[in-house]
C-alpha cells in the first residue's frame, strides 16, 4: 500500500510508460539489444503500475484522475475500477510475455523495419491500457482511435500487395465503425445526457429517462457494431484480413489487445452507459444475445473450412469474442461474470495458440494445417501447449475456458434462455471439430503426400518456446485457481 497520491499518478504512468519508450526505441534503432531493453523496461513499469493499482482496487477503491479538461464540459480522464482492471492486468502482463516472443520471432525471420515494429507495438499498448482506464466515453474513443492508427503499420508490415490490402480493410472497418457509428452516437448521447462519464453502477446507466425508445435502440446498435474491433458479424471481416501481419501482432494484438479493446468498449458501454435496467426494459440484452449467437456459430463453421492455421485461429477469435458479449448481454449475474472472465481466459489461451502458429512457422515455414501432420513429434512442447490451449477454447476442464462455459451456462439457465444453451453446445462441438484434428494429426498423423520436411527440424528457439509454455501454464492455472481474477469480476457484479 502506498499513499493515495501515488494511485493518482499510477494510471498515468501505466498509460504513458510505453509512450515514453517510443523516442527511446526510435533512437536506439541501430542497437537492437538496447532497443529491446527499452521495450522490456516500459513493459515492466507498466505491469508494475497496473499490478499495484490492482491491489488498491481490490481494497475497494476507485481511482479517478482528471487529466485535462479539453472542452468546457468534457475532460480526458482516467478511472481505474475493477472492470477495467481485468483487461489492464491481462494486456500489460501479456505484453511482457509477447515482447520476449516477438524478439525471437522477428530476429528468427530477420524481419525488416523492426524499429518501426517495436515503436508501433509500444504505442498500441499505450492505447490499450488507455482504453482500460478511461473514465469517460470521450477518453475511450480517443484511445480507441489511437489503437486503430498505431496498429495500421503493423498490419501493413510486409508492404506487399496482400499486406496493404489487409491493412486497408483493417482501417476501412475500424475507422468506418468508429467515425461513422460511434462518434455520432457519442455526440448524440452527450447532447441527450449532458455528460459522457460512465455511471457509478451497472444498473442505471447515463441515458436520461424519457429518451425515445427508437433513439436508444439506434444508439445501442451504433455502439454494438461501431466498435468494430469486437468482431461481431458483419463487422468481423477485418480480422481475418489482418492476419497478414507478423504472428506476434496477431498474437498480442489480434487475439488480446485490439479485439479485447473492442469487446471491452462494447461491454463497458452496455453496462455503464445504458445500464442493466434499461437494457432489460427494452429487451436489448436478449436481442444482442441472439445477434452474437449467430456470430458464435457462423464463425465456427467458417473456421472449420480454413486450412491456413492463422485464418482458422482468426475465425475462432471472432467466435470466442462473441462469448464475452453474449455473457454480458444475458444480464444474469453469473453470465456477466462468465463473459467478463472470458476476457482473461481467452486471452491466455488464444495468445498461446498464435504463439504456437508463429513457432511452427519459424521452425518449418509451414502455414497450412494440412502440412503439419506428424510435426508434433519433433516439436512436442509447441504442440503440447497448442493442445492445452485448444482445450481451453473447447471449454474442457481444467483449463480456463471451462470456467467461462460454466458461468455462462449457469447464467443462461438463470436467464431462462434455453435456445442459448443449444448455441453453446453447438459451438463446443464445432470447437472440438476444428481444434482436435490439428493436435491429433500433429502427434499421430503422417506428413501428407508430397510434403517433405527438411531434415533437422526442431523446436523453435528457446526465447519463443518459453513464452509459449508460460502462457499455456497460466491458462491451466487460471482454470484451477480462477479466484484471483474472479475477485475483480465479482466486484463488477456480485
Amino acid at each position, binding site marked *: 500500500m502506498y499513499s493515495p497520491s501515488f494511485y493518482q499518478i499510477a494510471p498515468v504512468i501505466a498509460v504513458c510508460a510505453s509512450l515514453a519508450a517510443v523516442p527511446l526505441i526510435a533512437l536506439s534503432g541501430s542497437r537492437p539489444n538496447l532497443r529491446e531493453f527499452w521495450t522490456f523496461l516500459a513493459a515492466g513499469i507498466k505491469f508494475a503500475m497496473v499490478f499495484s493499482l490492482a491491489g488498491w482496487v481490490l481494497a475497494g477503491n476507485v481511482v479517478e484522475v482528471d487529466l485535462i479538461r479539453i472542452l468546457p464540459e468534457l475532460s480526458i480522464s482516467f478511472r481505474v475500477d475493477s472492470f477495467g482492471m481485468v483487461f489492464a492486468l491481462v494486456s500489460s502482463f501479456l505484453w511482457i510475455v509477447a515482447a520476449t516472443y516477438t524478439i525471437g520471432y522477428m530476429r528468427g525471420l530477420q524481419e525488416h523495419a523492426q524499429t518501426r515494429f517495436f515503436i508501433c507495438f509500444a504505442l498500441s499498448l499505450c492505447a490499450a491500457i488507455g482504453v482500460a482506464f478511461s473514465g469517460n466515453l470521450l477518453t475511450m474513443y480517443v484511445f480507441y482511435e489511437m489503437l486503430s492508427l498505431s496498429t495500421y503499420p503493423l498490419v*501493413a508490415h510486409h508492404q506487399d500487395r496482400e499486406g496493404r490490402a489487409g491493412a486497408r480493410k483493417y482501417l476501412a472497418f475500424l475507422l468506418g465503425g468508429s467515425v461513422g457509428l460511434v462518434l455520432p452516437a457519442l455526440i448524440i448521447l452527450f447532447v441527450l445526457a449532458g455528460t459522457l462519464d460512465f455511471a457509478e453502477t451497472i444498473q442505471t446507466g447515463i441515458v436520461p429517462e424519457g429518451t425515445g425508445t427508437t433513439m436508444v435502440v439506434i444508439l445501442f446498435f451504433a455502439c454494438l457494431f461501431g466498435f468494430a474491433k469486437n468482431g461481431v458479424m458483419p463487422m468481423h471481416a477485418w480480422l481475418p484480413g489482418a492476419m497478414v501481419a507478423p504472428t506476434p501482432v496477431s498474437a498480442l494484438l489480434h487475439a488480446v489487445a485490439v479485439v479485447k479493446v473492442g469487446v471491452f468498449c462494447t461491454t463497458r458501454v452496455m453496462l455503464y452507459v445504458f445500464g442493466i435496467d434499461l437494457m432489460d426494459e427494452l429487451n436489448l440484452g436478449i436481442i444482442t444475445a441472439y445477434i452474437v449467437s449467430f456470430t458464435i456459430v457462423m464463425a465456427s463453421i467458417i473456421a472449420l473450412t480454413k486450412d491456413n492455421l492463422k485464418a482458422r485461429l482468426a475465425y475462432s477469435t471472432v467466435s470466442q469474442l462473441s462469448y464475452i458479449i453474449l455473457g454480458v448481454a444475458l444480464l444474469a449475474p453469473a453470465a456477466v461474470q462468465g463473459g467478463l472472465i472470458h476476457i482473461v481466459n481467452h486471452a491466455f489461451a488464444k495468445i498461446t495458440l498464435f504463439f504456437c502458429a508463429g513457432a511452427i512457422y519459424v521452425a518449418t515455414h509451414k502455414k497450412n494445417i494440412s502440412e503439419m501432420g506428424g510435426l508434433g513429434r519433433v516439436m512436442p512442447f509447441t504442440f503440447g501447449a497448442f493442445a492445452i490451449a485448444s482445450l481451453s477454447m473447447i471449454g474442457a476442464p481444467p483449463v480456463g475456458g471451462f470456467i467461462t462455459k460454466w458461468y455462462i451456462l449457469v447464467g443462461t439457465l438463470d436467464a431462462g434462455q434455453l435456445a442459448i444453451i443449444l448455441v453453446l453446445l453447438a459451438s463446443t462441438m464445432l470447437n472440438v471439430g476444428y481444434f482436435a484434428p490439428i493436435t491429433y494429426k500433429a502427434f499421430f498423423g503422417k506428413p501428407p503426400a508430397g510434403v517433405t520436411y527438411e531434415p533437422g527440424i526442431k523446436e523453435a528457439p528457446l526465447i519463443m518456446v518459453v513464452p509459449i509454455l508460460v502462457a499455456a501454464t497460466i491458462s491451466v492455472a487460471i482454470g484451477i485457481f480462477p479466484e484471483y481474477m474472479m475477485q475483480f469480476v465479482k466486484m463488477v457484479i456480485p
Partner: protein
Amino acid sequence: MIDQVPALIIIIPLFASLFLTLVGSLGHRFSYILLIAALAATFACSLLTLGLVVDDNQTIQYRMGDWPPPLGIELVIDHLSGVVLVLIAGCALLTAMYSLHPAKQDNPDRLNHYYALFILLVTGLLGMTASGDLFNLYVLLEISALSSYGLLARGRGPAYFATFKYLIVGTIGACFYLLGVGYLYIMTGSLNMVDLTALLSQPELQESVSVRIGFTLIILGIWIKMALFPLHAWMPNAYSKAGTTTACLIAPLMTKVSVYIMLRIMFTVFSVDYIFNSIAWSHLVIYLASAAAVVGMIAALAQSDLRKMLTYIIVAEIGYMTGGAWVANASGFIGATYHILADGLMTLCLFMAVGAVIYRTGDASKTAMRNLFQKMPVTAVVLVIGAASIIGIPPTCGFFSKWYLIQGAAQAEAWVFVAALLIASLVAAIMFFRLLEIAFFGDLDATDEHEGSQHGHGHHGPAVAREEAPLSMLIPMVITAVAVIVLGVYTKEVVNYFIIWSVPVGL
C-alpha cells in the same frame, strides 16, 4: 500609444506594401526582410489588440481620424474579429517566412512587386475583418481581391486563364455584395454595422421586402466569394495553378475571411431572430452545406493533382462552417467559429507540406508523394498532422471543431448535416490513407517488378536519398503543425476566452 494599436494592424502592412514597390533595386533579401518585419509587427499588434479585448472583455471601437460614426470610418475589434486577426496575421507571417525559396523560384524577376501584392492582400484581409462598416468592407474586399488576381495570375501553366475566370466570378460576387449594401443604405441611410443593427430592428424594416433583397444579395455575393457549393467552380482551378507561396497565403485565408464576414452579416448586422424566423432559409442552406461537404470531399478524392485535391477539401470545409452557422444553436456557431481557426491552420499546414513536395520534386501529382517518409521525413509528419486534422482524429483541432459541429447539428436535429459531416470525414480518411500509403510504402505499381524478391524480409528496396526541404520552409511548417495540435489541446481555453463571448444573443 497603445490606443492606436488597432489602426496599426492595417497601416503597417499597407505602408509596407507601398515601400516594397519601391525597393526593387535593393535586392531580394531586403524585400524579404522588409516583408517579414512588417508582418511580424502586424502580428504583434494584432496579438496586443486581442490582449486588450480579452483583458477588458469589451469591444474596441477605433475611430479613424477621430471622426465619429456613422460618418467616420470605424474599426470594431471584438473577441471574434480579434482572434481572426491574429489568425490572419499569424498565417501570413508564417507564409512569408516560408516564401524565401519558393517565391524566388516562382518569381525570378520583380520579387519585390510580388511581395508588395502579397502584403497588400494581407492588408485587405485584415481590414475586412476589422472593419465596422459595410462599405469599407467592400473597398477592402476589392483590395484583397485585386491583389489576389495579380498573385494568382503569376502562377504556372494556364494560370492566366483560371485567374481570368476567377476575376469574372469574383467581380460578380463583389457586385452582388455592393448592390445589397446599396439596398440597405437606401432603406436605413447608414453603413455602419452597429448603427444598422439598431435601425434594422425596427418592426417595419423587419418586414421590408427591400431589406430582404438586400440581405439576399449580400449573402449571395459572400457565398460566391467563399465558394459555397454550387458556386465553387472557380476556385479549384484558380488555386491549384497558383505559385506555391500564393496558394499557401490565399487558399487558407481568403475563404475563411469570407466565412467570417458571413457570420458578421448574419449575426451582427442582422439578428438571430431575423435570420432564422423572418428569412427562414436555414433548411435549404443546411442542405446546401451538406451537399458541399459531401460533394467537395468526393471531388477531392477523385483528383490526382495534390493541390486541386486540397482546394476541393476547402470546398467541403466551407460546407462545414456554413452548416454550423445555419443550424441556429450555440454549439453550431461555436463549431463554425472554431473551425475558421482550425481550418485556417490545417489547410495552411497541408498547403505548406504539399508546396515543399512540389518545390523539391517539381511534380504536383500523387506520384510526387512516393517514398516521402524516407525523402522528406519532417514534411511527411507535417502532412500527417494536417491530414489527421482534416479527417478529425483527436487531439488535432479538426476533431474538436467536428465535435461541436455535429453536436450543433444533432441538437438542431439536422440529421442530413450530421450524416454529411460523417461521410465527409470517412471520405477524407480514405483519401489521405491512400496518399500516406504511397508516401510511406512507395507506389506499389511502380515497384511491381521487385515483388518477387520483396517479401518484406531484410529487403529495403532501393535506398532513397534524403532530400528535406530547406529550413526556411521547414520551420514555419513545423510551427503550423504544432499549432494544429496545440489549438486542439487548448480547445476549452480558446472557446472560453474568445468564442463564447461572440455567440450571438438568442442562439
